[in-house]
């Protein structure tokens, strides 16, 4: 692929802290290589801001290899930018051309308060996991691997659901800020396996109750989450969560 350099205009959300109102700031990114990742472009811009004695743009990042789910950027109206199945660190500047104006916003959801600039607090997801996203394991000697038979197809589906990195793009992309794709992936990866059966019913009920409590919206099946998910988690997981929740709600005695 041909390498080129470009000059860009960035409209970036700046917000000092949780209580600040926040505003867009227009910045120039000069001489950006098409080989850079979107985050590296921000590194260059920040370097310059620091040299000018200004406050750099705060953004979350950790692994920079597409698996940590920290880089919560809404780029030109798209969660993690215009490419499908990628996080922001895997979005390369060749997705843009010289002279482009790029608007970068943090995830917008009441349940994900902005901490600073493009950094949001996603601990609501942690509390949903705590509510039921686990399995009970006996203490004592570890069991031999593979001593519980699992149907291959189900193992594959569970694995695909377990690919969820909890980045929150589903919430950011949903017009209702619904966390259903995230919760459905976390419920599915366990509900599909024999190890997940003991807590099957309480898991679905408790995780959905916590999801509602955190202030996420409800799912209207628009499919925007699936379209934006960097791990391409399927909407069939949401159907499975609905089945798990209906089954639990209709059959638990308490």
């Amino acid at each position, binding site marked *: 692929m041909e390498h080129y350099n470009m000059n860009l205009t960035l409209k970036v959300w700046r917000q000092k802290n949780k209580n600040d109102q926040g505003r867009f700031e227009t910045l120039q990114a000069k001489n950006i290589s098409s080989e850079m990742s979107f985050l590296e472009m921000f590194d260059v811009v920040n370097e310059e801001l620091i040299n000018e004695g200004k406050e750099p743009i705060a953004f979350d990042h950790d692994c920079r290899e597409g698996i940590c789910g920290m880089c919560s950027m*809404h780029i030109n109206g798209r969660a993690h930018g215009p490419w499908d199945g990628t996080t922001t660190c895997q979005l390369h500047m060749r997705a843009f051309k010289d002279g482009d104006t790029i608007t970068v916003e943090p995830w917008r959801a009441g349940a994900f308060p902005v901490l600073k600039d493009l950094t949001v607090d996603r601990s609501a997801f942690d509390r949903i996991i705590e509510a039921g996203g686990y399995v009970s394991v006996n203490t004592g000697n570890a069991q031999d691997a593979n001593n519980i038979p699992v149907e291959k197809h189900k193992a594959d589906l569970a694995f695909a659901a377990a690919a969820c990195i909890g980045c929150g793009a589903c919430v950011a992309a949903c017009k209702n800020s*619904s966390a259903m794709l995230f919760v459905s992936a976390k419920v599915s990866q366990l509900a599909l396996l024999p190890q997940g059966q003991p807590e099957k019913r309480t898991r679905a009920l408790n995780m959905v109750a916590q999801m509602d409590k955190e202030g996420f*919206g409800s799912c209207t099946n628009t499919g925007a989450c699936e379209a934006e998910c960097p791990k391409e988690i399927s909407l069939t997981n949401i159907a499975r969560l609905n089945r798990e929740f209906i089954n639990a709600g209709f059959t638990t005695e308490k």
Partner: protein
Amino acid sequence: MKWSQFFNTSIGKKLLVGATGFFLCSFVLVHLAGNLQLLYKDGGKAFNTYAQFMGHNSLIQFLAWGLKIVIVLHAFVALQLTISNRAARPVKYQVNPGNQTSSWFSRQMAIMGSILLIFIVVHLAQLWAPFHYSDMPTQSYEGVSEPIKDLYSVTYALFQNPLWVVLYVVGMAALSFHLIHGFKSAFQTFGLNHSKYNGLINFIGLWLFGIAIPVAFAAIPVVIYLNK
């Protein structure tokens, strides 16, 4: 989880909207079958005897009141969900993805539902209320023991006014857009998503409920108006 808690969760409320939605889908099918008799050129005999039967059969009348409760429940719970969904994003995005990540129909459910609700109120006020609660000209038919209310002629008179024809066509466009997403969406809410049946569900949702039924409904006032 108690029933009261269950139906207060986001999924529980969606189940109520989905279940009432399915009932309303079955209603539009029956309603269309009856209404198409308006297009028979028999002086209204078929339609008026049908209307007489529907208006006086106690089982039908029971269902008709149930239907009104279902419409109110559907609209009320959907409104509750819409309000909490809007509140879930207090600060909006400056740039939105539009149709890149979701279909236009799927994002307009509340708007189309609201248009439909207004349409239903007007429709009931124009045709249902006068039929039940006021004196309407009657008509005698051969083989029918006594004169029956002539809803057929009242309907024909109504659709001589192009304003009402347009209103009914707009109402049915809203029905179409609402059901293109609503029918298949309700299946997903009930967890009915299966690669062997999705094709059939999507086909029925789009072609039967999304297109054929609304178009056939809308054709009634248009045909009546054009044949005057």
